[in-house]
């Protein structure tokens, strides 16, 4: 085009600037409540997160989804405030208050302008310590959640997640991903109250605060609100072994008329504290974590089968999975499996190149500061560290850990955890169109309807 030769080569970077990790102040109150306080005066904002080492996996066997329902109902009434009053007070401050649970932990989160820090923290404490689960609110949540269960079944990715969790986790608590109709019928106010009292205890909690605050003022306020909270006994979560997989099986969820097939290829993998975590993270980055990874390049950029193909490293406290996923048009369901297995075999059988590992290390090191640019980003990281028992110097050593991984480490974990001949292949799609396409990939095909019931045949 013209003679601007500088355009031919990628430019060299400028001098790198160091990332100054914010300094965290940590302490523990006499009742066992852990505190992590990070002063951040960039903007007049504050973010709170009170996290408990109790999550969906702590649900009693007869009440799957109890953590979920408790999260939903926590801000629907306290000893002194109605549901409406809570919503109005929070929103009148321009603040947010939200409660949620993952498999391993639950969080009560609040954020606001720093001038409203005292009011918001008081509201957070009130719903956490004095929620009463009024009967009318429980009944309303029961009815509305039943409707949401109906909506979930219209979503192909919910059906895929549900089947995958059941197949991989068996009788483990991680196998349940949502409340059930029976659970909702059985749920009482007392269940919620006693579950809150037994799981929301200070000695299994961390309060993380990031923002523009005065240390002594905040400590005084925390003491006022939380020091009188009594310790409790945390009950252990049962963690039975996962079903032993001996062969590859296809679990086909028949969704007649589906415009695509949602494919999930899953194997049991690692816990979050496994020494294999960083090699797995690098392997995942090379195989499928982003738009420059192998799966995306193959299934989308070369084949045009999908909007995106990715892998997923799901490492939790007690168990985990490694998965490869894509949503593909129905006609190329079988052809997509061929490409997936080509890539899964390749990452097992051949060492990744030095260039690939260097690029993956550079990617992980580079995106790291982007993730902690905001208060929410940093607070997510700290909560994960505390709740999943990661070392306190995790953020400081993260990049060293990433850079220490070798190509041999990657191949070793690929051979250990990527096992296509024992994989569970979940496909949500139109069984009449898909079954013949996928037969070459396994002799074992189980077919289910969208309600989760086994089906004998397609029709």
């Amino acid at each position, binding site marked *: 085009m013209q003679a601007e030769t500088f355009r031919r080569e990628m430019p060299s970077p400028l001098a790198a600037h160091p990332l100054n990790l914010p300094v965290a102040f940590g302490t523990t109150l006499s009742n066992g409540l852990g505190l992590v306080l990070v002063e951040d005066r960039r*903007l007049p904002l504050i973010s709170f997160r009170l996290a408990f080492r109790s999550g969906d996996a702590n649900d009693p066997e007869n009440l799957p989804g109890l953590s979920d329902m408790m999260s939903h109902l926590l801000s629907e009434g306290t000893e002194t405030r109605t549901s409406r009053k809570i919503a109005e007070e929070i929103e009148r401050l321009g603040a947010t208050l939200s409660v949620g649970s993952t498999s391993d932990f639950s969080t009560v989160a609040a954020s606001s302008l720093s001038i*409203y820090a005292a009011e918001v923290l008081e509201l957070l404490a009130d719903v956490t310590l004095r929620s009463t689960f009024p009967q009318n609110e429980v009944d309303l949540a029961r009815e509305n959640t039943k409707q949401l269960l109906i909506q979930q079944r219209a*979503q192909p990715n919910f059906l895929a997640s549900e089947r995958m969790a059941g197949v991989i986790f068996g009788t483990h608590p991680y196998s349940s991903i949502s409340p059930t109709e029976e659970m909702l019928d059985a749920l009482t106010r007392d269940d919620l109250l006693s579950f809150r009292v037994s799981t929301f205890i200070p000695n299994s909690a961390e309060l993380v605060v990031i923002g523009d605050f005065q240390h002594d003022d905040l400590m005084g306020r925390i003491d006022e609100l939380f020091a009188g909270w009594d310790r409790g006994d945390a009950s252990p979560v049962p963690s039975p072994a996962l079903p032993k997989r001996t062969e590859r099986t296809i679990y086909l969820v028949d969704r007649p008329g589906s415009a695509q097939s949602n494919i999930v290829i899953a194997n049991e993998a690692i816990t979050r504290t496994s020494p294999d975590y960083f090699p797995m993270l690098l392997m995942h980055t090379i195989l499928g974590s982003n738009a420059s990874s192998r799966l995306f390049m193959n299934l989308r950029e070369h084949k045009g089968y999908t909007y995106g193909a*990715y892998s997923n490293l799901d490492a939790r406290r007690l168990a985990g999975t490694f998965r490869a996923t894509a949503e593909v048009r129905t006609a190329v369901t079988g052809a997509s499996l061929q490409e997936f297995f080509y890539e899964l075999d390749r990452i097992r059988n051949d060492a990744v190149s030095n260039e690939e590992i260097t690029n993956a290390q550079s990617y992980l090191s580079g995106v790291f500061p982007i993730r902690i640019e905001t208060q929410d980003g940093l607070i997510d990281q700290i909560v994960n560290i505390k709740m999943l028992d990661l070392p306190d110097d995790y953020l400081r050593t993260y990049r060293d850990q990433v850079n220490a991984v070798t190509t041999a480490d990657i191949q070793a974990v690929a051979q250990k955890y990527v096992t296509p001949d024992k994989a569970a292949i979940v496909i949500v799609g139109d069984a009449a169109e898909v079954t013949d396409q996928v037969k070459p990939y396994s002799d074992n095909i189980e077919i289910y309807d969208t309600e989760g019931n086994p089906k004998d045949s397609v029709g």
Partner: protein
Amino acid sequence: MQKTFHVPHTPIEQFTLENGLRVILNEDHSVPVVSVAVYYDVGSRNEREGRTGFAHLFEHMMFQGSENVPKAAHFQYISNAGGTMNGTTSSERTNYFETLPSSQLPLALWLESDRMRSLAVTQENLDNQREAVKEEKRLRYDNQPYVNGFLRLFEMSFQNPANAHSTIGSMEDLDAATVEDIREFFRVYYAPNNAVLSIAGDFDPPETRSLIDKYFATIPSQQPPPPVDVSEPVAVAEQTDVFLDRLAPVPAFALGWKIPARRTPEFYALSLASHLLFEGESARLYQKLVKGEESIVQIQGGIDERRGPSGLFIVVIPKPDHEGTHIREIIFDEIRQLATAGPSAEEMEKLRNNLFNAAVRSRQSSLFRAQQIAESALYDDEPELFNTDLQTYLDVTADQIRDVVAQHLDTDNRVLLNIEPSAEEAAPAAPHEPGEPDQPTAPLPQVPPSPDDAPAGAPLPVAQPQPIESN
């Protein structure tokens, strides 16, 4: 209760290159990260009939290589440098953006300038991305309940085809796009004088100015693109229609109003009115219908913000045995009440604090700043709007909110679409528009398709995997 509050000023520097490229710089050294956003003044509003979805398909082609950057190497270069990137298309504009370690600013400028000056289009790459876009459409629209119904609401709301069709377009029109179309579109719309370059974060201004000069100054300008006519006739009566949805498990309905363009006094007041009606659990309609009557499972609403006639929408999923007609009467009653008595003092305080909180919280992200400032520069040639727009919102009075609701929402000028489950394929309506596919518990798409919250056509799914997330 209301405390005084001052939002920190965001420093913005602006200049224009000789070729017409508008440049915006926002320096901030809190994290060694820099975000670069390039906004082109072209969106689905510029598409002609028979070429719907073209602006978005074109956006995908911008990742397919240019003179010095091979196909898909854009993804590789950015990832390997430790960055993230994406692009989105709305009715109003197409944007491209990346966030990187600040030392990698030259890389971003090299990549953005190379595709601005020398996009390379091949038949093979076009065919490949056409397939990727069709899968995006299947994933986010055709395989989701309610989403295509929601697009039908747009077609009913707007009479001008420039406004009425969706950003994702139709399968037939996607099939019809040729390499020649792509080249012509590039020539007309992807010129420096039709674009804004916005940089926010950790950079040195003099050094950055000379890099911008080096990479962008020699890209030739083009004739301005043809003007767009987005004018709409004023609607005069309620329109009603039914959409048969074979994926919807239960009935739903959607209401839509045509409202004045962004930056009009009416638009500011209606944005605040919509917040009081349906944003958050203290909102009037949530308290009335989800609580109170307990007649619906969920209500979502929003504003489709455009430079021309814009939209305000509400989508409702009733509970079984609750009549849509009755629920709508409650909605209209509530609107009527706001149109006569206006907001309460408590509600005005709530709006004020929410405006402050949103303004300050969003400023944390360099990418958000780069994008927002670029948008004001592109639409209004007024990047300082990023700082001053808040005051315009704060100045809206309770009486203005009352009057604008009376004038625009308490009228028969609205559309109603009943979405009904059906074993049949959907009626002749064209398919389309955004839904967040990663939330199995959200029954409704993330409506309306606000370009900033739910990009209508990102080349990549919006949620990128976290580096140290547990799942």
